[in-house]
C-alpha cells in the first residue's frame, strides 16, 4: 500500500515535523527569554551592545526585556500544542516579522538583531508550514 495512505505513516510524519518545529521553537523562545532577562538585569550592557547611549535608554531596554519575556511566556501553549493553538503561533510569527522590520529601520546594533530574528522567523515559518501540511495530510 502506498504509504501516504497509511494512518500510521502519515501520523509519524506529522509527529516528526512537529518535533522539528518544537525543537527550533524551544530554542527561539529560550533565546527570547535569555535576551529579555539580560535586558531586565543588565540594561546598560544591553544598550551598549545595541550601540545606544546607556543613560537615556535603560528604561526602554528594560521595558523591551519585560515585553520579550512576556511574549515568550505567552507563546508557551503554542509550543506544547503547535497545531491546536495555531492562532497564537501564527500571531507570534507575524509579531516576529514586524519586530524584524522595526529593528531594520532602527539600524545600528538593531540591524544584527533584525538579521538573527529574521533568519529564525523564516526557519520557524518554514518548519511550521511543513508541520501544518503534514498534519493536514494525516487527516482523513
Amino acid at each position, binding site marked *: *500500500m502506498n504509504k*501516504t495512505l*497509511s494512518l500510521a505513516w502519515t501520523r509519524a510524519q506529522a509527529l516528526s515535523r512537529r518535533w522539528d518545529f518544537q525543537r527550533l521553537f524551544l530554542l527561539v523562545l529560550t533565546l527570547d527569554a535569555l535576551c529579555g532577562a539580560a535586558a531586565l538585569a543588565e540594561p546598560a550592557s544591553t544598550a551598549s551592545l545595541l550601540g545606544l547611549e546607556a543613560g537615556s535608554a535603560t528604561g526602554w531596554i528594560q521595558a523591551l526585556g519585560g515585553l520579550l519575556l512576556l511574549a515568550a511566556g505567552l507563546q508557551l501553549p503554542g509550543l506544547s500544542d503547535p497545531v491546536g493553538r495555531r492562532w497564537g503561533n501564527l500571531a507570534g510569527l507575524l509579531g516576529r516579522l514586524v519586530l524584524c522590520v522595526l529593528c531594520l529601520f532602527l539600524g545600528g546594533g538593531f540591524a544584527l538583531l533584525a538579521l538573527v530574528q529574521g533568519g529564525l522567523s523564516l526557519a520557524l515559518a518554514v518548519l511550521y508550514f511543513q508541520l501544518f501540511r503534514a498534519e493536514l495530510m494525516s487527516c*482523513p
Partner: protein
Amino acid sequence: MKGAVESLDLGGPLPQSDPPPSEPRDIGSASAGRARPSAPAPQPVRIPATERLVGWLTLRASRIQAWHRWPFLIAVPMVVGHRTLMRVRNLTDTQTVPPPAPDPAGLDVRAARTADGSFNDLAKPWMGMAGARFGRNMPLDQTFGEAPPTLFEPSPRLISNRLLARGAFQEVPYLNVLAAAWIQFMVHDWLSHESGDKTAAPHEIPLPPGDDWPEGRMTVLPTKPDRRSAADRGRPEAYANVETSWWDGSQIYGSSLERQRAVRTDPETGRFLTDGTLGLTREGLLPLAHRTARGKPDENLELAGVNGNWWIGLSVLHTLFAREHNAIVDHLRAAYPDGSGEWLFQKARLVNAALTAKIHTVEWTPALMNSPEGRMVMRGNFWGLLGEQYRRAFGRVGTGEILSGIPGSPAEHHAAPYAMTEEFAAVYRMHSLMPDAFSFRRHADDVELLRRDLAKVAGGQAREVHDRVAFDDVVYSLATAKPGALVLHNYPNGLRRLDRLDASGVYFDMAAIDILRDRERGVPRYCAFRRHIDAHVPRTFAELTDDPVWQAQLHEVYGGDIEKVDLLIGTLAESRSARYGSPPGFGFSDTAFRIFILMASRRLKSDRFYTEDFRPEIYTPAGFAWVQDNSLRTVLERHCPALHSAFADARNVFFPWRKGEAGTGAPSNPREAPFVGGSR
C-alpha cells in the same frame, strides 16, 4: 452580515483566449431563433467585503494561471474566490411558478425535516422540495436543449465506442469501491430526473457503420420536461427533480410520506414500526421490495428510499445507514426515554442525514481531492480556518463561514433559491468509477468466495450476493477493490450494454445516454461551459489534453472542432492536462471541481438544518454530539467491528483497506454472521 453589498461587480468575465460564440449557443440549433428569455429578477447577493476582495484578486490571479498551479497560501484563497464569483454569476433560478407546498400535517417543521423537503426555508416552503425544478449554473439563454441534427452530432454512440469504451481497466490506486458507491448514494439523496417521456417520440441515436448494437437501432426516451406555464414563454425547458434537493437523507427515507412509511415497516410483520426505527430483516439486511420506487418490477430488489440503479455497493451503504439510523434511535431513546417513536424517528433522521453530510465533506471529498489544498478547503467548509479542535472546544467565532465553517452560520441562498442544478448532475456523471468485475473475498484470509460481473451484482441480484457472502466480507471486498479512473477509454462495458430492467432483451448504452442527456437538457458543451466558470477555454485539442493519442482521437471524432467537445468528454480528457486540467492529487477534473465547490457549500449554506438550526436545541444535545463524534470510520466500527483491523491503518476509509492474510482466519458463513447494528 457585515460589509454586505446588494450586488457584486467583479470586473466582468475572465477574458478568454478565444472569442465566445456570437449566438447564445452555436452548438444546438434548438437555441437559434429563439427569443432571449426574460431574465427573472436576480436575488440580491450579499457578500462580505473581504470575500469580495478575494474574488476580485482571484479573477486577476487566474488570468496568470489556474488556482492549483499557485502555491498553497494563494491557491486556497483562490478557491474561496472562485466560489464567491460563482455565487454571484452561476446560480440561475428556473422556477417560474413555485409548486404548492403541502400541509405539513401536524409535523413541527421548525424541528424536523418534512418527507418531501418542503418548509426547509420557512419563507419559501416549496424551495428544494420534491417536484421543484432543477436550477442552472449557467445563464438561462445558454441552456436551450439541443435538437436534431446537432443533438446527434457527433453521434453519442460513436463517442461511446471511440472515446469511452473501456479497454484495459484503469483503476484509481488510492481509492476503494466504497468511494464509487458513496457518491452514487449521495447523488440519490440530491437528485433524480423523472423517467423518460413515454408520450414523446424517442430519440433515435445514429449507429456508426459496422456497429454491432442489438436490433440495429438505438432508441432512448426523451427526458420529460416540467409542465410549462405562460411565465415560461421564451425560456428553455426546465426539468423537475423528483427527489428533495436537500441533503436530508432522502435516498434512505424517501421523498414522500408514502415511501417513508414503507421503509419504516417491519418486514417480518408488515406493520408500521412505531418505535422510530427503520425496517431491517433479522439478519440486519434491507427488506425486499421486488420493485423500484418508480414501480419497475425487479425480483429480490431491496427496499430503500431510492432503490433505482441498484448494485451491491449501494446495498451495502443503505444497509449500513439504516443500521446507523436504528443505532441513533437506541441512543436517543436511552438519553430521552420519554420521547415518542415518531419524535425519535425525526431526530434520528436529522442526525443521520447530518452525519452523511459530514462524511461527504470531510472524508469522501478529501479522499478524491488528495492534496493539502483540497483537504484544507473541505475541512474549512465544515470547521473553518480555526479547525475542528477549536470549534469543538470554543464553538463558533462570529457568523462568517471562513473562520468557523458553514454549519451553524446564517442560511443564505445567494443569487437564486436553492435547487440542484442540471450542470451539477452533468458533472456527477461518474459512471467510469464502476468496475466491470467484482471479486468477493473472505476478510479473514482474502480467499475468493464469489466472482461476478457488474450486471450480476446489480438490481435484485445484489441480494443474491448477500445470500452467498457474509455482509462483512462484502464490505471488505468492496473496500479492498479499486474503482475506475475518470479518464477516457474507461467507461464500464457492463454499463454500455445494460439490460433494461423492465424488458429483458432490450438494452441501453449508458455512455451514449450520458452524452445525449447533457445535450438534450441544454448543458453547454465543454468549451462553453468553461467560458462561464472563469476557467481557461482550450483553443486546440493539444490545450485540452497532453496525451497525443487522445488529441488525435478527439480531433477525428469531433471533426477538428474543439467547441463541439461534450462536457463529459472534456472533463475526462483534461485528466491528462497538467496546465489546465485536473489538479494534482484530484480524482476528478478542475471543471467539475468548480461546480462542486459552489454546490457543496450551497447544500450546507442554504439548508436551515445545517445553518441556523444546526444546534442542540433542534438536534437534541445527544443527537448533536453524535454528529460531532462520528464519522464513516466509527459507523464501520459500530456495524462491522470484525473488519476493524482491515481499515485501522487506512488514513481515510475510502482508501484501499489492508488485505487479510492467507491462512489466518476461520471460514465465515453469511448465516453465522452476527448482526450487531442496534435494534431492528
